[in-house]
């Protein structure tokens, strides 16, 4: 049974990715300007041959369906996403590759901190429902929940960078700096990373603690928790060995489902701090109407979200045999 469950999940994810590619193809044809021009970037010095080559490569002299679509799918599968308008006709895939590192660093760390901190706070306030931590924590979480990431970021920037001068205000490294050692380089990046990281982590902690609290409260009413208490186990043991493992499952799934929204917050948070990742690239592409890059970002982010969801589903199936039907 287990294999069939995995197979079905993978098939569903593959279908979703196909739909994303189809959607991207439709968007691509909706863009203003002729497709071959879009593919080559707004380079005025394009030779007639280059134009002809592009037309053939993408099947533009053939009918829209199925030929052009097939050509598009093949090119996308090979990682050929067209050329950027802004970066002098650089391939979109290369532009994305340059920017993905900083984003992974920022959001990987932020997710890690937020999962540990958010789940602990949520579990504790759910466990001690109505207590001081629950009351204050819930209020703060609710306010953070209503706050776009970039507002948190602007607040941090005004207080800790401009006001107190503890951290640099923008970028990932000090411009023009030379480093005596690799260590100095790392320290410089960490100083730049501190505020964006705090910004995203704070935003996420609010969400995760709300999720975890609800999940713990739900679990606490279950029969097996009552049984565990009736057996005379200590509070801590009931929480750690009985309530938490079951409460964690739905919380972790919801975190995976939420990754799509985190991605959205990511874009705005990076803009506040000029963090040179995919978010800042998105803003640059928007300003320059660099459609190929925008599309590449959309494709990359949506496929990442689908894959994240797939991994969560598979993990869930592994941890909780009840869902493997």
């Amino acid at each position, binding site marked *: 049974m287990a294999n069939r469950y995995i197979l079905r999940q993978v098939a569903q994810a593959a279908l979703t990715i196909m739909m994303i590619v189809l959607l991207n193809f439709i968007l691509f044809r909706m863009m203003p300007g002729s497709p071959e021009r879009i593919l080559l970037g707004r380079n005025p010095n394009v030779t007639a041959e280059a134009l002809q080559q592009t037309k053939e490569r993408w099947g533009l002299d053939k009918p829209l369906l199925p030929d052009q679509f097939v050509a598009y799918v093949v090119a996308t599968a090979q990682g050929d996403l067209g050329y950027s308008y802004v970066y002098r006709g650089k391939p979109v895939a290369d532009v994305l590759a340059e920017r993905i590192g900083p984003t992974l660093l920022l959001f990987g760390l932020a997710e890690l901190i937020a999962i540990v901190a958010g789940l602990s706070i949520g579990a504790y306030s759910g466990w001690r429902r109505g207590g001081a931590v629950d009351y204050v924590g819930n209020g703060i979480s609710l306010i953070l929940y209503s706050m776009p990431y970039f507002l948190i970021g602007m607040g941090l920037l005004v207080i800790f960078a401009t006001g107190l001068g503890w951290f640099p205000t923008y970028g990932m490294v000090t411009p023009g700096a030379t480093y005596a050692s690799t260590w100095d380089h790392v320290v410089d990046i960490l100083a730049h990373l501190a505020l964006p990281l705090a910004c995203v982590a704070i935003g996420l902690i609010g969400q995760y603690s709300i999720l975890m609290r609800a999940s713990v409260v739900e679990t606490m009413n279950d029969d097996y928790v009552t049984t565990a208490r009736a057996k005379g186990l200590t509070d801590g043991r009931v929480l750690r060995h009985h309530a938490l493992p079951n409460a964690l499952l739905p919380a972790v799934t919801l975190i995976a489902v939420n990754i799509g929204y985190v991605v959205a917050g990511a874009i705005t948070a990076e803009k506040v701090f000029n963090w040179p990742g995919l978010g800042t690239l998105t803003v640059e592409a928007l300003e320059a109407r660099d459609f190929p890059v925008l599309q590449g970002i959309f494709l990359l982010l*949506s496929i990442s979200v689908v894959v994240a969801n797939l991994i969560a589903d598979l993990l869930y199936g592994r941890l909780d045999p009840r869902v493997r039907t």
Partner: protein
Amino acid sequence: MTTQVLTAGQLRRQRLALRAQGWRDFVRRFSRRREGVIGVAILALFTLLALAPVFFVGPLETAVTASGGRLEPPSPTHIFGTDELGRDMLNLTVHGTRISLMIGFLATVVTVSVGVVLGVISGFVGGRTDTILMRITDFFLVLPTFVLALVLTPIIRDALGGGGEIFGIRVSLLVIVVAIGITSWASTARIIRSQTLSLRGRAFVDRARVIGAGPVHTMMRHILPNVINLIVANAVLVFAGAVLTETALSYLGLGDPFQPSWGQILNAADQAGAPGLGAWWYLVPPGASIVLVVLAFTLVGGALDDVLSPKRTGRK
């Protein structure tokens, strides 16, 4: 036992009385939820500002009619300070209320309408229609829809031309409404579908079919009135999401500088380097407004959900 025969007039009066009773009941139960009442009060205040901004702070200041100096901190003449063009922040924020809430409202109408139509059809018709519609819905639920809205907005705007006005609203703002609408209906459709499914099996729907009601009539007169509670509770939460999405889109530079929403003001603050200059008064008024309004919608939505959905009563 004698059956009392009612005239049409009596019947109508009785129905009205029942409806009034239901409404009074709802108000009584809702007013017991403190957080809901606070939310309604906050929303009422902002709605007032949105309806008559000119009455409260005069016409929207422009670079020409700016009343103060460049980036002045709060003072008795400008209690919220001024921006980099010398415009009064209070004036900008109150006018921003109108834009933000208007886009939020229109986007909510579009989102909820699409979601309800697809949800009711999917749940009521069932079969292959249901399978296909729900496959699309699930697709939109997985998709990072904000990024899609981000890509769609400039494409639609370039296609439409961007300038001009429809009903006094600039096209660039309507583009945002459309972009939010087509990307965020999926969760509404899911909720409405599951409620429709449970209604479809009820006796009164069968009864309507037996006496010859067509599917459209049944959906309009029997299903829709029974999901209206759910629609209202959901719409409130959709509104909060729409305000947040609009704010983020405008902050990223997709807003309209001539009709500034709160997000657009924050975008301008960013462009002017306000965070780096320590001009906190440029950020706090629009920022606090966003948080208050979204928080208020969340509070009201939670309270409505508790009051309107019968399952939840008696549970804290």
